């Protein structure tokens, strides 16, 4: 049974390389390390070879490490729930991580509580369309005349925790930073329709533990932020509490108040944009370049060049009048 209100902590993994490889403060690695050390199994979302998101099973830390980092598209769960049940019935400890609706889905499927299952749900903005993501990668490949070999949905190493810039690496060696997919994501046209009516947009969640980026850290725990990532950790019941107690050695933490920790997805879902249908018509009928310009804040390079030229001319004129 979940408590009436969660216990709230700000958490940073003590190992800085772990934290830099994680979306926020690395609490997922601390919790999953503890499971792996006991011979348990970790389930979570990885990026596949064709840059799509899917849930997989991990017995080893190196496989678990692929789950670190947020993939801002909906993850494919096919086949996974049955594997979880098989592991649980074999008496193995299991940690399952995913969006709140994925965790609730698993719990519904299992139909009973298992003492040796720990569910960790992530605070979720909503999940973007993988079709838009695929079209975006193709567009970037065309523009850069090279195959994409790696992506980071939110590059923290180069830009810090709070920034939101996606980075693509190409076979040619080129590395491209962009905010086009971020802008499409935050425009909300590309979210799954159910996300506008998500029932998990409150401080109450289906997981034993709920994790998020601690955006309100300055208010909740002044002095704790270093822009390298802090996790907001909500302990929702006795099991979650015990799982956190077991990893306290590996992390720095501060107890916080829920009132100081709120962000929109802990209060209500985002609204469905009125012109959602118009977006999808554009997406299906027009070029991706058009979509990127109209909805993704993309400004073609030649336009930038023209503007810079104009600005230079203006400056020259201005300097002349001054001298």
């Amino acid at each position, binding site marked *: 049974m979940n408590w009436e209100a969660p216990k709230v902590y700000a958490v940073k993994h003590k190992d800085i390389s772990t934290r830099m490889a994680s979306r926020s403060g690395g609490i997922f690695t601390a919790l999953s390390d503890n499971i792996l050390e006991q011979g348990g199994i970790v389930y979570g979302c990885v990026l596949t070879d064709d840059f799509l998101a899917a849930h997989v099973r991990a017995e080893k830390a190196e496989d678990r490490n692929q789950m670190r980092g947020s993939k801002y598209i909906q993850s494919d769960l096919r086949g996974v729930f049955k594997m979880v049940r098989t592991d649980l019935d074999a008496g193995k400890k299991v940690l399952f991580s995913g969006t709140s609706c994925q965790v609730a*889905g698993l719990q519904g499927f299992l139909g009973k509580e298992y003492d040796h299952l720990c569910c960790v749900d992530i605070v979720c903005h909503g999940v973007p369309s993988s079709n838009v993501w695929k079209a975006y990668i193709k567009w970037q490949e065309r523009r850069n005349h090279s195959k994409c070999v790696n992506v980071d949905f939110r590059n923290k190493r180069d830009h810090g925790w709070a920034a939101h810039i996606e980075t693509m690496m190409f076979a040619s060696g080129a590395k491209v930073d962009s905010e086009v997919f971020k802008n499409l994501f935050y425009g909300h046209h590309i979210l799954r*329709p*159910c996300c506008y*009516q998500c029932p998990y947009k409150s401080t109450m969640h289906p997981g034993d533990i709920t994790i998020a980026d601690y955006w309100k850290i300055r208010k909740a725990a002044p002095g704790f932020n270093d822009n390298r990532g802090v996790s907001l950790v909500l302990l929702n019941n006795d099991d979650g509490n015990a799982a956190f107690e077991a990893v306290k050695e590996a992390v720095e933490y501060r107890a916080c108040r829920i009132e100081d920790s709120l962000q929109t997805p802990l209060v209500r879902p985002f609204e469905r944009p009125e012109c959602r249908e118009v977006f999808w018509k554009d997406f299906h009928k027009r070029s991706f370049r058009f979509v990127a310009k109209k909805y993704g804040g993309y400004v073609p390079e030649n336009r930038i060049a023209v503007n810079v030229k104009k600005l230079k001319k203006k400056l020259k004129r201005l300097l002349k009048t001054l001298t």
Partner: protein
Amino acid sequence: MKKTIGDLPVLFNEKENCCGCSACYAICPVEAISMEPDEEGFLYPAVDAGKCIRCYKCLAVCRFKEEQRIKGYYSRGICG
């Protein structure tokens, strides 16, 4: 004599009411449900009428619709 068989389960009326968690797909005892992408690339369950034995386990397992109902989202005129 013609065998009478119940209605095919309707897993969602509007796309808003399915999060694609795959619980119905996983619980089906005869693998009658597949998860198929729509034109936006999101997966939704599709029931194969030939395989389905009308046990309705897929309807009973769906937590998402249940929680939307509790929150009052499900009845917002969006769904029947």
